[in-house]
């Protein structure tokens, strides 16, 4: 019996270690690349022999990366804010109110979640260049908030279903209008859900590459993923590996830390739609 226990512990321990290694090896690799000296980049060792911060210095001294970082942060934050607000209104209406077209709306929202972005990139490019939105923040914010809206509505709706709505009823019996009850009672109750949604939406906007390379062209609005892909190396045929690695670490770590802190909520958010339907 006791021996079985030990075997079991070893079994799951190994399993756990495999899972953790699976997740962490590429991250460690990019971190260690970013810390290698330029001359050591081709030494084919996993870990740096000598640690150096030269690549971090290099990317922050250049104009390209700080501009892209600022663009990424601001665009993702504004998109998140808008998507969550708009999504919250719609989710509340879908869950709490009855109106004609309710199911249709939800179905449409779900359908757009499956939509391939490449299908609208051409028209958007044409519209943006005609309206002057090309290479501006707004030009990226609009598609980001739109493409995350289904996700936001979906997750928020799933969470809203769980909220004790009796409080809402009580508030309304006390004479509050639906709007008042929404703002004063429901919003605070929904805050955790909103926060989860915000993180997921933020990650989407932060991660996007296709819109970023298609609808931007300069430091005006180019975000980090696009900037990394277009980093210009010093010599003609060389990829600036060190700079790419350092920039990758800078944009990966904050999100990763945020995700790890709020992991329980994020897991709930990611799976809510699928499991609860």
């Amino acid at each position: 019996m006791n021996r079985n226990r030990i075997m079991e512990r070893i079994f799951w321990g190994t399993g756990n270690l495999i899972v953790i290694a699976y997740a962490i090896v590429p991250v460690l690799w990019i971190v260690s690349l970013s810390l290698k000296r330029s001359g050591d980049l081709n030494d084919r060792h996993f870990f740096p022999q000598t640690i150096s911060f030269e690549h971090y210095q290099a990317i922050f001294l250049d104009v390209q990366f700080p501009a892209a970082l600022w663009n990424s942060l601001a665009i993702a934050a504004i998109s998140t804010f808008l998507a969550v607000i708009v999504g919250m209104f719609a989710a509340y209406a879908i869950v709490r109110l009855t109106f004609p077209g309710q199911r249709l709306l939800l179905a449409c929202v779900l359908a757009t979640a499956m939509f391939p972005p490449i299908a609208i990139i051409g028209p958007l490019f044409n519209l943006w260049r005609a309206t002057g939105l090309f290479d501006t923040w707004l030009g990226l914010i609009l598609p980001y908030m739109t493409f995350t809206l289904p996700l936001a509505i979906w997750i928020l709706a799933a969470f809203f279903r769980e909220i004790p709505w009796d409080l809402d009823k009580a508030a309304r019996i006390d004479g509050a209008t639906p709007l008042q009850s929404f703002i004063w009672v429901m919003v605070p109750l929904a805050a955790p859900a909103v926060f989860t949604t915000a993180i997921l939406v933020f990650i989407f906007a932060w991660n996007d590459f296709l819109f970023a390379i298609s609808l931007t062209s300069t430091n005006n609005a180019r975000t980090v993923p696009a900037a990394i892909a277009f980093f210009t190396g010093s010599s003609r045929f060389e990829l600036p590996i060190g700079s790419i690695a350092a920039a990758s670490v800078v944009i990966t770590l904050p999100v990763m830390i945020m995700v790890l802190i709020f992991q329980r909520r994020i897991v709930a958010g990611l799976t809510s739609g699928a499991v609860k339907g």
Partner: protein
Amino acid sequence: MNLRQRNERRLAWLLCAPAVTVLIGVIVYPILYAVWLSLFRYDLRFPEQRVFVGLDNYVSILTSEVWWQALGNTLILTIGSVSIELLLGFILALIMHHTLFWRRAVRAAMLIPYAMITVVAAMAWKFAFDPTTGFIDALLDREQAWLTQRGSAFLVIILTEVWKTTPFMALLLMAGLTLVPHELIQAARVDGANAWQRFIKIVVPTMKPVILVAVLFRTLDAFRIFDTVFILTRGAQNTETVSMVGYNTLLVSLNLGLGSAVSVLIFVGVLIISIVFIKGFGTPTGRRGEIDS
């Protein structure tokens, strides 16, 4: 009461209006515009020669070997990565669900690939497989330029895709595992069913809706694969996907007419996949699934 209902309805419309407006403005209108553009010869390099050509663009695409090659590549990548993800996802989900300790740490680790930007993940793997920079060749003690040959390039692309997205699959499946009634498992165990039988006879059927949703999500996602391929090979070595063909035609060639037709065809591909899933395996939503089983 009637007034109240009317008010409620008005509020509902009001609350939904911004979402509906944005969805129509940024998704519905552009896709209709894409359909419209796809009927024209419209190339930004010849701005004056915008001519209605009917379905010519579609004919031109469907008779082009480039398109069929790209579609084939996309299907290989989609089927290859989703099937590995499902298998691996189940293993990871079972570990996360059943493990006796470190449960939090393991679940947290699963979120790391999810939080890593796709471009960054692709770069990390690209450098890892690079014969001069990477550790993989050193590890395997060989000199192979993985991304310069079609077969091995596909392998690296699938690996990158699998690494990045399996955790999503695993988390969904893990959530599904919690739905499996414990009593059922216990009863089966009493009846003498072994672990494998319990898995096939009880766990999988109960989880069918979740599995379907997970696989559908990932299939649609993999079908539009772009970032990974763009970073790893840029379509060289014949690894071009349909999204890359769309991007190249629209934004590199600036051929908006032809490119829009490619976009529409990709959209149709997504529709077909969804329909196949929904008709073939039943509606993939939890509620219906519960009723069905």
